[in-house]
């Protein structure tokens, strides 16, 4: 695999494969021949959620997994997060397994629902993962303040989750994920339950946060325009069986704002992603 540079062929290959797959600096996450099958409940043929997925993700990259339901995009994210085990193939994160990275607490996860603890205030929700990590109280307080400022919720620290709007709750979830200073931020359709206006505001916020923190972000969505707006690369997944059908480079300049959505280039990229789906 060493030296296979930018082979942009469509048959699920090693894109941007500047480095070897052994996890040297230059490739953050290497996914090789990953297949996942779920046993059928009624004893029939197993459901193939993902088939032969190969993907390389660079450090600091914003990568989006996009596709219709049933394409395995969430399964792929969960496999990287060690919430799902591969049937065959492997996920390698800097030479380590997802399990090792999880145990080192290097993942920040933002779920589709905010998953906040309703008996804790906003501040204490953001604080919770740091308590698990044994971070001293002073440091925790400082980080919570910083994170809430980053997501624009500083004034809401003493509120309880049910007093916040859906968009605010999701921002608390993002602050909580970032507070542990993860190396990889995994986001599973975090904005899909929000209305269009809130979603756009959070897009702007997320772009700003990403440019400040420079985390590797893996973002799952079924919204093509969202994928193009946010990412460096869009991984297009097609269903039955779930597979990577294309990887589209998004070479829009940064920093990006919502106005970029009105450009021809943006729309061309959206069309390109849309036309990449197979069998939908």
């Amino acid at each position, binding site marked *: 695999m060493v030296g296979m540079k930018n082979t942009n062929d469509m048959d699920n290959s090693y894109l941007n494969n500047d480095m070897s797959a052994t996890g040297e600096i230059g490739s953050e996450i290497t996914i090789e021949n990953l297949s996942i099958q779920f046993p059928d409940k009624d004893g029939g043929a197993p459901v193939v959620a993902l088939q032969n997925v190969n993907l390389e993700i660079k450090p600091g990259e914003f990568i989006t997994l996009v596709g219709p339901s049933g394409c395995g995009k969430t399964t792929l994210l969960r496999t990287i997060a060690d919430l799902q085990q591969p049937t065959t193939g492997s996920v390698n994160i800097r030479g380590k397994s997802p399990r090792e990275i999880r145990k080192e*607490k290097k993942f920040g996860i933002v779920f589709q629902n905010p998953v906040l603890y309703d*008996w804790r205030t906003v501040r204490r929700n953001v604080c919770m993962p740091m308590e698990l990590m044994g971070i001293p109280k002073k440091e925790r307080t400082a980080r919570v303040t910083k994170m809430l400022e980053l997501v624009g919720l500083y004034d809401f620290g003493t509120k309880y989750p049910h007093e916040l709007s859906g968009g605010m709750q999701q921002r608390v979830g993002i602050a909580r994920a970032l507070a542990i200073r993860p190396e990889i931020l995994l986001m599973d359709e975090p904005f899909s339950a929000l209305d269009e206006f809130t979603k756009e505001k959070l897009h702007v916020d997320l772009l700003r946060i990403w440019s400040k923190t420079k985390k590797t972000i893996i973002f799952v969505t079924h919204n093509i325009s969202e994928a193009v707006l946010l990412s460096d690369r869009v991984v297009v997944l097609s269903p039955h069986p779930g597979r990577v059908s294309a990887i589209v480079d998004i070479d829009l300049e940064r920093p990006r704002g919502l106005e970029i959505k009105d450009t021809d280039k943006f729309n061309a990229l959206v069309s390109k992603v849309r036309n990449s789906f197979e069998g939908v």
Partner: protein
Amino acid sequence: MNQIKKIVQSKQMVTFAWIIGLVAVWEIIASYVEKTKRTPDNVLPHLYQIVESVFSPDLVNGSQTAIQIVLSNAGITLFRAAIGFVIGTAIGFLLALLMNMFTAAEKIAFPYLMIIQMIPILGMAPIVLAITKDIDTSRIVIAAILTFYPVATNTLAGFKSVEKEKHELMYSLAARKRDIYKKLLIPSCMPYFFTGLKISAPMAITASILVDTLQGGGGLGCMLSQSLKHAMTIYVFWQIVFVGAIIGILSYALMTLLERLVSPNKKAKR
């Protein structure tokens, strides 16, 4: 108009309407009883007669007025019920923890817990009394037996109700089991736990009164049966009925208050 509608539909108004309704029904029946029965006091006295008896300075048993007897005995009963309730709560909570931690424990324990619950308290009380040979201990044991089951089942339901995503969040943070319980499961199950307490607190008191009736030695139940056997005025009985009801309601209210102290976010919700 809307204002009036709001007041009529408010919680206090509903409670008020209920009280008025109950008093009316009570009084109608009491008037009927007064005309038809030879000893109406024993069947259903008027409410004012009961209130009068509370403030009556007459000594009932040589040294105490009726209300003094009722209140001092209520103290005895309540104290035992409270100890039993606390012990039962602790056992119930620990059982729920065990059953949640070990599936085997749940499979082994759960059906038999239900059987204990199905034995009528009237049947169980003499057995417990025979074993412990002490009325005070029996009160505690019976109150504990009645308490632990609602607490255990509700708490277990609370543990099981935690969403998968919350577990996954803890998993993704490689949380230790102890932390998962401390930071997620136990706080999550609190509303369920308190539902269990609200069910069992009045039950513990009822049980304690019931055990009192088995033997002398004080307690509301003991006075209740003496009063019914006409060892003292029947109004002691009627006062106990009301004091018992009030204690039961207060025990429920106390649990609600405790819940609000423990989970401050509840305040904002209501």
